[in-house]
């Protein structure tokens, strides 16, 4: 009965347009909410995921990557003493103020990494290389900060917490959840120059690589035992903890979730309403179909096919709109994370919503008595 569904849809363009509007609305709203949320979570965990480590050691009760507390850096020796560890390194995460040419200042996130090993270094460079920060007051900053900081020319001097630093490289794709610009410098320089931020002999994180990832749980358990004053997490656990913090503890995830659900409900209501109006209008025809020998299931298939065709068309149009707007949205500083899996999942959600919205129509058809066709 797909044949009848298509013919009717095409013949009634006005109603089709309303149905599609509802589905497009749902698609655009749901896709933006989900991709914005995932984009933000991607930013919030970007550094964790790109430091090629298996284990993260931090001070007790750190809730997410951005809010670290310093602890003695020599505890790295306990990590290194484990036979399962290939390498271990230190990483500082702190915050400072960068003075702007115009006179104002901007809060920046500072990552201090070891330029000899490159652990914790920016993973994609536009110009310069990570090792350039070695041995002095040098820094790399992410290109996305340009909007906030003004022109970023290599070789220029910048004032960071009243100390002059030279810009030696530009990275790309390093964003933080807070949207503060992310700045990289040598681990030692943080101690030497910015001792007001992180005291000598203190670090924010110790990261380590294992010989055999299969032994992860044993190694983590061992380290937890020997480092009672620290939290020891696998990379995956730390990513999850950070995501959990921003999503649940700040209530932010709920905001995205509610908006997405609202989009689905409003879209579903529009679709349900038009499908129901459509069914009521065609009730006589459906009664005729029944009298002519159609089963209820034949008529359900007409209604469901119409809904499914609308869902596919509306979702496709909504997706095109999103892909079209994506550039502009990202230019405005909002990261959208879109992938085939996300398109696929949202499509399933939209389709199910549309099919559910046809429920009342289906009920109407089921109770429709074919005798009505003889009445005028």
């Amino acid at each position: 009965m797909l044949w009848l569904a298509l013919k009717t849809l095409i013949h009634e363009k006005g109603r089709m347009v309303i149905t599609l509007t509802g589905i497009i609305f749902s698609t655009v709203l749901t896709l933006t909410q989900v991709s914005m949320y995932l984009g933000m979570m991607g930013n919030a965990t970007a550094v964790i995921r790109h430091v090629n480590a298996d284990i993260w050691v931090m001070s007790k009760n750190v809730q997410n990557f951005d809010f670290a507390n310093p602890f003695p850096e020599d505890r790295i020796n306990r990590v290194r003493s484990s036979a399962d560890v290939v390498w271990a390194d230190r990483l500082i995460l702190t915050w400072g103020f960068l003075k702007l040419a115009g006179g104002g200042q901007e809060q920046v996130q500072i990552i201090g990494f070891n330029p000899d090993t490159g652990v914790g270094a920016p993973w994609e460079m536009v110009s310069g290389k990570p090792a350039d920060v070695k041995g002095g007051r040098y820094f790399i900053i992410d290109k996305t900060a340009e909007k906030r900081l003004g022109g970023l020319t290599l070789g220029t001097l910048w004032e960071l917490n009243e100390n002059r630093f030279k810009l030696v490289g530009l990275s790309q794709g390093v964003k933080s959840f807070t949207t503060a610009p992310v700045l990289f410098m040598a681990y030692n320089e943080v101690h030497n120059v910015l001792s007001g931020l992180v005291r000598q002999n203190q670090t924010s994180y110790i990261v380590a690589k294992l010989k055999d990832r299969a032994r992860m749980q044993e190694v983590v358990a061992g380290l937890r035992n020997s480092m009672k004053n620290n939290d020891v997490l696998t990379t995956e656990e730390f990513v999850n903890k950070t995501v959990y913090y921003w999503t649940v503890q700040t209530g932010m995830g709920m905001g995205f979730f509610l908006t997405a659900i609202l989009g689905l409900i409003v879209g579903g209501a529009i679709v349900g309403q038009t499908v129901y109006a459509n069914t009521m209008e065609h009730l006589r025809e459906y009664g005729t179909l029944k009298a002519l020998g159609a089963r209820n299931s034949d008529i359900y298939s007409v209604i469901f096919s119409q809904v499914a065709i609308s869902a596919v068309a509306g979702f496709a149009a909504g997706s095109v709109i999103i892909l079209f707007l994506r550039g502009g949205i990202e230019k405005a500083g909002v990261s959208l994370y879109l992938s085939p899996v996300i398109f696929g999942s949202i499509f399933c959600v939209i389709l199910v919503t549309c099919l559910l919205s046809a429920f009342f129509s289906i009920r109407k058809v089921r109770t429709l008595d074919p005798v009505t066709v003889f009445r005028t």
Partner: protein
Amino acid sequence: MTVILEAEGVSKIYGKGENSILAVDDVSLSVRRNEMLLIMGPSGSGKTTLLSIMGCILHPTSGEVRIEGKAVTGLHEDALPDIRKQYFGFVFQAFNLFPSLRAVENVELVLRLKKTDKTGIRAEALELLKKVGLGKRSHFYPADMSGGEKQRVAFARALAGDPPIIMADEPTANLDSRTGQDVLKLLRDMSEESHKGIVIVSHDPKAEALAHRVVFLEDGRIRS
């Protein structure tokens, strides 16, 4: 002439208790092949109810309906759509065409419903429209056709799948008298040429002249 459809002692009571209406009261009637049977009677006498029962669309309160000698009254509700599909073509007073389908597609729809093999369906639908004299207007939508043309499409649709029984409820009520006459002739020819049993309900005196057999219904009973 072989009997194809029989109603035996059928009654239908609508509603319950004090408000119940006895619409059909102990009617026995048979329909034969090659015959156009006309049911006449005043408005409210139970004609449509009787037609619906005989057409397996409505369950009688009591009595039995048999098709080719087999009782269908005792069958489960789910079996009825297939019986309607196999044995009946219906023509309704208000035509009941699908407005979003062209004439030929309206016929095609029933063929699609009745047949599992979809090849040649379009050609078959066109052939049926030609038979009712609408070969040239097969691509019109119902909205662009006259009452007589719509009723012809409805006939073509009733003929689709070549059912042995055609039932028509007041097929001329919405037509002018010339067109009504044509349509009735068409029905009568169908009964004689394709060996169908045809049951029509009508007030039309012209129908009385054309029918092979007439029964009168009054207060749900056949007047003898």
